[in-house]
């Protein structure tokens, strides 16, 4: 049942689709939010981690005696203790990647710079840091490898001896018949190599937790900013031998996460062990340099041997590619990324013949976490580069080539070659809107004028088309490991009428700034006939009081579908209970009852009505006044689990519905390049978004802005660069990393179309990750500025220096692109 149907009998004005001001804001604007570091407990100690200064080394003797002797030091924890007390975390990978041994602290070896080796707990932050300095660790240095391709060499140092090679996962994904297509195409465009660089959305709040083992109940309370607590619990429980029922996760406010706070579970587990050992609450607040060096990075991916069959009319038939995804030193959420890209296998295009030989490599670098746009943005960028390079090499107009190859509006739901359904959309219309907003024709004229007049400046205009697939079918995990008992998805919500008739909601999600309290209040209010301001959506998340399922959390662009789907179901259950009680009290039938402004009344008879407080009274404190069959049928505490209608994908053919909804982004950028310095100025940036029915357009626009800023920052400034020899991270703090500032992000222009999803309970599509559109868009703009026949843009990261080099590439330099026409 849709929101509209449910709301039909109510009178309250709908707020769905309107920019209701966020209810979360007041506390955040007054400095009254409660984040993990805002929790202080009696007898609490502060933890500081001794971290590896080396990229690859064998751990020798560890001496904690001097640290433990310091006054105010409560306890230390070493890898050897962790190995004795715990099992390695479970691995998602099949053999041989499953043999990886990942512990809460380094055991035996260190495999990346910053890896935690020893934990020290002390009375103050500063003392813990001092004591950590006093810990002596002997290392026997080993050769490190940080290059994604060199790590595959038979002579490369092996990170994990239990695996025996630096490959965590490998498989070939093929649909259609790419060999046939390459044989029969009019042109075959080959691209040697494309490189998607390593960066991260670096949430401004670092990882943090206050962890307290209660000796009396043996419950461990974790007040953390982990964004997927059930996933964390499922990993931690078997490792430390505690039932999930005794792992009590709580979060209120979280200072951004972007997927990177999913894989904080090893460090949280270390804090649990330390709390148990010391018998004290443990506060962990990561420093920025630790977060940048050693928490989680976004995946780097290198594409080689790309072959693209193209017909004379511009129809692109598909592609053949080898993809090397670099997970860093441990797998953690991986190799789920090894299949997640295939949610958008053909990108925004009607490509029929696809083959991806996918290899996940291991290197002596920080492990990865599912960073905003996870695994799809790398793949989508590769496809956008393909389309753009094909246009330049074969002389097609980049706008017309895209439009020709997009699915057309009447083709939705569009089935991809691997059995996914793009639920709704209209990419050609989005592109037209983007070009209009950007004044595309005007800039083309200006570009030509500038070319004529010279003056040391060039203009480039780029287009990026990407998808944000939302609401995962976790059955796709079986495509990377057939033994994983995962499938489907779900989210839970609980809506109740409280003692005096107040409406209270709690959610299974753990938001990090996405405004769930507001959109849930809009959604529940719509169904129960009250204003969003009269609904109390409990802030944050708590396993002790909130409804949840195994996949609960805030990640992967799904709340608008799963979270609100659960809120709709729970509110409808409560509405039906209220109607039943009201009908009993008023001598009517439930379908005669309508809810409006906190009152349940008989339609058309203003005299016969009962306020919600009266309903609550009858159920909670006056229950003998109700007929037993009614009293037994209601609780006014309504839990609902939303379950998307998924089936288990086919493992053999690697096909099936992998995600429920597909939001789309079309970005258009105009850049001006200084030919002397390579400095790039973004003159115009337009982001067109389509995410189905928008529950709160202001929140949607905020997500569009944020996702665009991450992509722009990554494309021009942000990069994790490792020294090839030493394996040291060269951009290990915010000075060197240069997170995008207010002057780096242009004033974005946004526009949207709405194509309601036929698949979701409210017409909405999950959104927020944004598909990494700016990376594609800015590369296309650079390519446009370079012109046909010139240098080819093959890297996502194009700071001034790289642009300068591209401008100066010699015309006789070997080109990374080749065209064979027949």
């Amino acid at each position, binding site marked *: 049942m849709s929101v509209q149907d449910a709301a039909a009998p109510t009178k309250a004005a709908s707020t769905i689709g309107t*920019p209701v*001001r966020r209810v*979360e*804001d007041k*506390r*955040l*604007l*007054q*400095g009254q*939010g*409660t*984040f993990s*570091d805002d929790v*202080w407990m009696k007898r609490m100690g502060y933890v500081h981690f001794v971290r590896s200064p080396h990229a690859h080394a064998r751990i020798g003797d560890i001496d904690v005696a001097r640290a433990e002797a310091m*006054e*105010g030091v409560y306890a230390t924890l070493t890898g050897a203790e962790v190995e004795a007390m715990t099992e390695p975390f479970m691995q998602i990978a099949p053999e041989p990647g499953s043999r990886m041994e990942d512990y809460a602290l380094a055991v035996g070896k260190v495999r990346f710079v910053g890896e935690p080796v020893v934990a020290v707990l002390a*009375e103050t932050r*500063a*003392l813990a840091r001092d004591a950590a300095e006093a810990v002596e660790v002997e290392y026997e240095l080993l050769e490190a490898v940080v290059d994604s391709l060199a790590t595959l060499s038979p002579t490369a140092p092996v990170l994990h001896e239990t695996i025996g090679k630096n490959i965590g996962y490998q498989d070939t994904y093929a649909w259609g018949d790419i060999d046939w297509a390459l044989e029969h195409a009019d042109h075959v465009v080959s691209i040697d190599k494309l490189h998607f660089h390593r960066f991260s959305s*670096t*949430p*401004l*709040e*670092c990882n943090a937790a206050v962890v307290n083992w209660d000796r009396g109940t043996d419950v461990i309370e974790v007040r953390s900013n982990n964004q997927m607590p059930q996933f964390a619990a499922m990993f931690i429980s078997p490792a430390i031998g505690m039932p999930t029922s005794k792992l009590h996760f709580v979060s209120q*406010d979280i*200072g*951004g996460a*972007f997927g990177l706070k999913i894989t904080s579970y090893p460090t949280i587990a270390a804090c649990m062990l330390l709390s148990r050992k010391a018998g004290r609450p443990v506060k962990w607040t990561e*420093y*920025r*340099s630790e977060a940048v060096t050693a928490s989680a990075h976004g995946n780097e991916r290198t594409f080689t041997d790309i072959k693209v069959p193209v017909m004379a009319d511009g129809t692109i038939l598909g592609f053949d590619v080898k993809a090397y995804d670099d997970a860093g030193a441990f797998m953690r959420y991986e190799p789920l990324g090894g299949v997640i890209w295939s949610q958008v296998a053909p990108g925004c295009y009607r490509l029929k013949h696809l083959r991806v030989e996918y290899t996940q490599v291991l290197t002596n670098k920080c492990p990865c976490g599912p960073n905003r746009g996870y695994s799809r943005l790398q793949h989508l960028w590769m496809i956008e580069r393909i389309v753009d390079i094909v246009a330049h090499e074969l002389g097609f107009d980049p706008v017309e080539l895209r439009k020709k190859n997009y699915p057309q509006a009447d083709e939705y739901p569009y089935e991809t070659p691997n059995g996914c359904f793009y639920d709704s959309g209209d990419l050609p*219309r*989005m592109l037209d*809107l983007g070009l*209009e*907003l950007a004044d595309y024709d005007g800039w083309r004229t200006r570009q030509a004028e500038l070319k004529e007049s010279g003056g040391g400046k060039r203009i480039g205009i780029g287009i990026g088309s990407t998808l944000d697939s939302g609401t995962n079918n976790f059955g796709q995990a079986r495509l990377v490991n057939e033994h994983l008992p995962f499938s489907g998805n779900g989210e839970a919500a609980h809506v109740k009428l409280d003692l005096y008739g107040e409406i209270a909601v709690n959610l299974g999600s753990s938001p990090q*700034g*996405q405004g769930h309290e507001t959109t849930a209040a809009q959604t529940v209010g719509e169904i129960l006939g009250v204003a969003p301001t009269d609904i109390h959506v409990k802030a944050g998340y708590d396993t002790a009081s909130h409804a949840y399922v195994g996949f609960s959390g805030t990640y992967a662009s799904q709340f608008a579908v799963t979270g609100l789907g659960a809120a709709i179901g729970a509110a409808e259950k409560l509405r039906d209970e209220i109607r039943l009680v009201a009908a009993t009290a008023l001598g009517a039938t439930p379908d005669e009852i309508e809810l409006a402004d906190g009152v349940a009344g008989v339609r058309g008879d203003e005299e016969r009505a009962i306020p919600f407080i009266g309903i609550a009274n009858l159920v909670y404190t006056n229950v003998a006044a109700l007929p037993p069959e009614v009293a037994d049928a209601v609780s006014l505490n309504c839990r609902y689990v939303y379950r998307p209608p998924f089936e288990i994908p086919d493992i053999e053919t690697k096909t099936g519905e992998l995600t429920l909804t597909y939001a789309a982004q079309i970005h258009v950028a105009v850049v001006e390049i200084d030919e002397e310095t390579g400095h790039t100025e973004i003159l115009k940036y337009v982001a067109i978004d389509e995410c189905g029915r928008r529950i709160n357009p*202001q929140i949607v*626009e*905020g997500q569009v*802005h*944020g996702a*665009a*800023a991450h992509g722009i920052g990554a494309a021009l400034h942000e990069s994790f660069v490792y020294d090839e020899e030493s394996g040291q991270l060269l951009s290990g*703090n*915010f*000075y060197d990393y240069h*997170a995008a*500032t*207010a*002057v780096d*992000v242009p*004033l*974005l*222009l*946004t*526009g*949207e*179309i709405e194509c309601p999803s036929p698949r979701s309970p409210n017409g909405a599509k999950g959104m927020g990750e944004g598909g990494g559109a700016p990376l594609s868009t800015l590369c296309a703009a650079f390519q446009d500025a370079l012109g046909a026949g010139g240098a080819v843009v093959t890297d996502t990261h194009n700071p001034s220096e790289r642009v300068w080099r591209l401008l100066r590439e010699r015309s006789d330099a070997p080109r990374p692109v080749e065209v064979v026409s027949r």
Partner: protein
Amino acid sequence: MNDPETTHLVEVQINGERYERAVQARELLVHFIRDTLALKGTHIGCDTGNCGACTVLVDGQPMKSCMMLAVQADGLSLETVESLSPAGEELSDLQKAFNDQHAVQCGWCTPGMLMQAKALLERDPDPDVETIRRTLKGNICRCTGYVNIVRAVQQAAGQDVSAGIQQEARA
């Protein structure tokens, strides 16, 4: 831990209230504000002075409180985000503008942004967009892309937010 050679007595005025405390010589002002006084509104987002989440006003000037020692605040007057609308009071015009323009997502940078913006509007009540962007350069936000924060400062300055920044298109 209370070694007299490393401990100093400081007296600071914060949000109109006088505090006298013994602090460690090496204690950062931001840790003093957060851990000692439990004024949790001031945040920490980096350890290199880049992000500005810890921005407070020191004698009216915006300062990154992670770049000052607590002892350096001795005798000074500080304002933190908690001063903008004391308990029970409505949001200030600047805070309301942040709410209206959806300039808050996760809320981590927000206290620093507000204090920086407050200082800007006090010295330049009608800043142009470029001035706003340059002023906020030392305050990193990872959620909003800054667009709505710039709009919020414009609204607080009584400017037409749509002018020169953003047109929305509907197809």
